[in-house]
């Protein structure tokens, strides 16, 4: 058990690697109730979110559609990364990180005061993530037939209220699956029901190796208030169009967008034995130096992978300093793994 944002959470239930493979090959369930669920209701909800978030909720036209976004401060530092669901024109639901929940709430409430938006934290809800190629079918078995069928009909990145549950086809593993918000009292029976269907209990350890293989950032590791989206591999989430949308952080981002960021976030694949870890130094020849932001052993690729913040001109190969030794690594574009398959077919043959 470890402390994670004030929650006691297991790193693993059985074997971290076993749990990882269960998700890549079949299905696993994660307790993600530590994440913050915020409901934003009111006439001004859409306009408020268009001001609050770097991505544009104006893109959300379909009921239940989700959008991934950064929430920035005035200096374009990343306050948090989050998912926001469009439930109707007066109701959006936001899922934020556990460690930033209190800070986020204060920030959101401060900026919501001027607009007609009511912010409610849904501490009554638990959340389970069921992930893997068999995850949706197994989760649907827990629901009434009509609701199960509706859940299976959900498009990717769409959520819907089905009875007492809010079922969304989202996740943090690079696999298909659901994230389900439910009344807290439903969580333990649902978990046991999933176990009895052969869904593996998975801890924080597998969650980290899965998300890193999938090339997904972890707040606090790969970005925080001292970094902006363009140096965090998150430029794709920043909506600079339309130009008149004046969101928080925009003024600081525009010159960076125009001139290019001097640093970028890349994937690294270690070419030798060892394990890349956060804060190890990256030597990128003439381009300069950088640092690993997240590193681990990839159970799918059976070698070490990492995300690293490096000078913009870095490419090809770099060296990483591990316990005083310099080991070779290849610069790659994340993700490393998607839907169970390596996206690096030559990974093992590279000299």
């Amino acid at each position, binding site marked *: 058990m470890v402390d994670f944002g004030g929650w006691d959470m297991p*790193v*693993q239930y059985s*074997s*971290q*690697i*076993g749990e990882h493979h269960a998700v890549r090959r079949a299905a696993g369930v994660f307790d993600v109730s530590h994440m913050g669920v915020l409901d934003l209701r009111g006439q001004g909800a859409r306009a408020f979110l268009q001001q609050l978030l770097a991505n544009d909720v104006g893109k959300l036209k379909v009921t239940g559609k989700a959008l991934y976004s950064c929430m920035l401060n005035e200096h374009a530092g990343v306050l948090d990364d989050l998912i926001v669901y469009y439930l109707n024109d007066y109701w959006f639901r936001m899922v934020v990180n556990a460690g930033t929940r209190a800070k986020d709430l204060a920030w959101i409430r401060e900026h919501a005061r001027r607009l007609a938006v009511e912010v409610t934290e849904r501490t009554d809800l638990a959340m389970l993530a069921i992930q893997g190629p068999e995850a949706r079918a197994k989760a649907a078995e827990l629901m009434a037939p009509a609701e199960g069928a509706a859940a299976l009909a959900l498009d990717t990145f769409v959520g819907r209220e089905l009875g007492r549950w809010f079922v969304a086809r989202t996740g943090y593993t690079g696999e298909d699956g659901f994230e389900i918000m439910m009344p807290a009292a439903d969580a333990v029976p649902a978990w046991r029901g999933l176990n009895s269907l052969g869904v593996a209990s998975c801890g924080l*350890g597998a969650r980290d*190796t899965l998300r890193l293989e999938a090339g997904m950032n972890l707040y606090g590791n790969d970005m925080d208030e001292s970094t902006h989206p363009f140096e965090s591999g998150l430029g794709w989430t920043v909506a600079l169009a339309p130009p008149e949308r004046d969101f928080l952080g925009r003024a600081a981002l525009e010159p960076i967008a125009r001139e290019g960021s001097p640093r970028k976030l890349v994937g690294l694949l270690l070419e030798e*034995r*060892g*394990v890349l*870890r956060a804060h190890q130094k990256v030597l990128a020849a003439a381009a300069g130096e950088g640092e690993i932001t997240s590193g*681990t*052993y990839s*159970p799918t690729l059976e070698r*070490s992978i990492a995300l690293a913040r490096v000078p913009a001109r870095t490419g090809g190969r770099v060296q990483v300093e591990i*316990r005083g030794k310099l080991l070779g690594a290849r610069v790659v574009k994340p993700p490393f793994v998607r839907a169970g398959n390596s996206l690096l077919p030559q990974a093992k043959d590279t000299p």
Partner: protein
Amino acid sequence: MSNVPADLRYTKSHEWVRDLGDGTVEIGITDHAQHELGDLVFVEVPGAGRTVKADEPCAVVESVKAASDVYAPIAGEITAGNPKLAGEPEVVNADPYGEGWLMRLKPSPGALAAAALLSAAEYQKVLDTEGG
């Protein structure tokens, strides 16, 4: 409960020592240590001929979640590092007191007697105190 064989000696930092009876000792990490680390994915052992001081970090065991140093329980000269572990680090998880040994060492004169090693019962007390 961790497995603590009675015929071995131990350190507080979770290494075990086996007297091979030929003037050398075999060293590894305990069942408790491998369990705490979880699935091992990388093990680096010292090469033969290296001289180590007592309590000097001389091997590294890394699981998915963490890297951990292994300390020489006794001063001496390394006679072998387990060659199997480069390709199969998981052997340490599966058989920490057997196939998963890390290194063999020829203690410096008097070093074995001088080393403050724990008996199995004493090591078990360390684990009980740690809640292991």
